[in-house]
């Protein structure tokens, strides 16, 4: 069973994503900050990271950069944000984020994106590891 890591400083979003993905037979870990997310990634096998862009201590892009520098650099990361900007979207592209999802999002579409990200990573066919 695949495991996803949900990273968001808002409990409401963590709960919403937890309910949705656990109903689709995913194992789930949750972190309320970037640092906690990195600790989890260092200790558990994670197949996909879903992270908020704006968080107080470490934003989603910084978290992605640190994942890319870690031994788990190939984990697909999906950024979720209610505050999209051109700068952050271009930076997301440059840090090899798998997708940049703007809130409010469609949960079923997000589920499809996660499935595709994990399938491509397992086949080493992410669009940056082709």
């Amino acid at each position, binding site marked *: 069973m695949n495991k996803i890591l949900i990273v968001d400083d808002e409990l409401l979003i963590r709960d919403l994503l937890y309910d949705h993905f656990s109903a689709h037979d995913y194992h789930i870990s949750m972190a309320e900050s970037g640092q906690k997310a990195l600790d989890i990634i260092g200790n558990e096998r994670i197949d996909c990271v879903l992270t908020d862009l704006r968080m107080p201590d470490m934003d989603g892009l910084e978290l992605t950069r640190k994942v890319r520098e870690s031994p788990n650099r190939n984990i697909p990361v999906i950024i979720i944000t209610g505050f999209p900007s*051109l700068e952050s*979207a*271009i930076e*997301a*592209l440059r840090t090899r984020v798998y*997708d*940049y999802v*703007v809130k409010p999002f469609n949960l079923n579409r997000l589920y499809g994106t996660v499935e595709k990200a994990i399938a491509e990573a397992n086949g080493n066919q992410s*669009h940056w590891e*082709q």
Partner: protein
Amino acid sequence: MPNHSILVVDDELFVRELLEEYFSKLDFEVSVASSGPAALKMVAESRFKVALIDLKMSDMDGIEVLKSIRELDENLIMILMTGYPTVESSIEAMRSGAYDYVIKPFRLNELKDIISRAIKEHQFRSEIGDIKSRIDTIERKLASLTNEQDLKRPPKKSKRTAVTESDGVYSRTAVVSDSDLAADCQLERWGKLLKEGLISQQEFDANKKRILAAV
């Protein structure tokens, strides 16, 4: 930087000329295309390491060109350029596998740095591709050797012995365990791969060490 072939795709003559002149002076091999279909024809006929593609072109937009080029050459690194940047098109570029999204007007030396990184990425992808195909060849060879050996190879005797007792008479007999046989087979196979030049001496030694440690 000699022999790095790049393709510039832009419907504006001024941009094509500017980039061709600048990158030629840096010893890049520069080709230019004024439209998406022209670019696709060139990619089908020649190998490029990096393509710089304008996002808004009259006949075929940059994202479409990028997706069609990907079908022809999956290792080619593609950078989109645009004077009309939007969040939506940058997300679309990400989803389509663009390596970078550059906003016009750009500084030429910044573009040069992006191209240099892109060429390293191209080299990395090519090396990964080579390693994957080498692993495929070795796996196929190993599979065929396994079949051959299953049919032809008589079991080898092990140097190991054991003391046995029968009716009060003790004797020493050779013992050939399954793991000894498996190790022999594996060593012989890796030896053949070494002989055929499919693996290096170092790779052979590492595998030998691993196999013997497991016995």
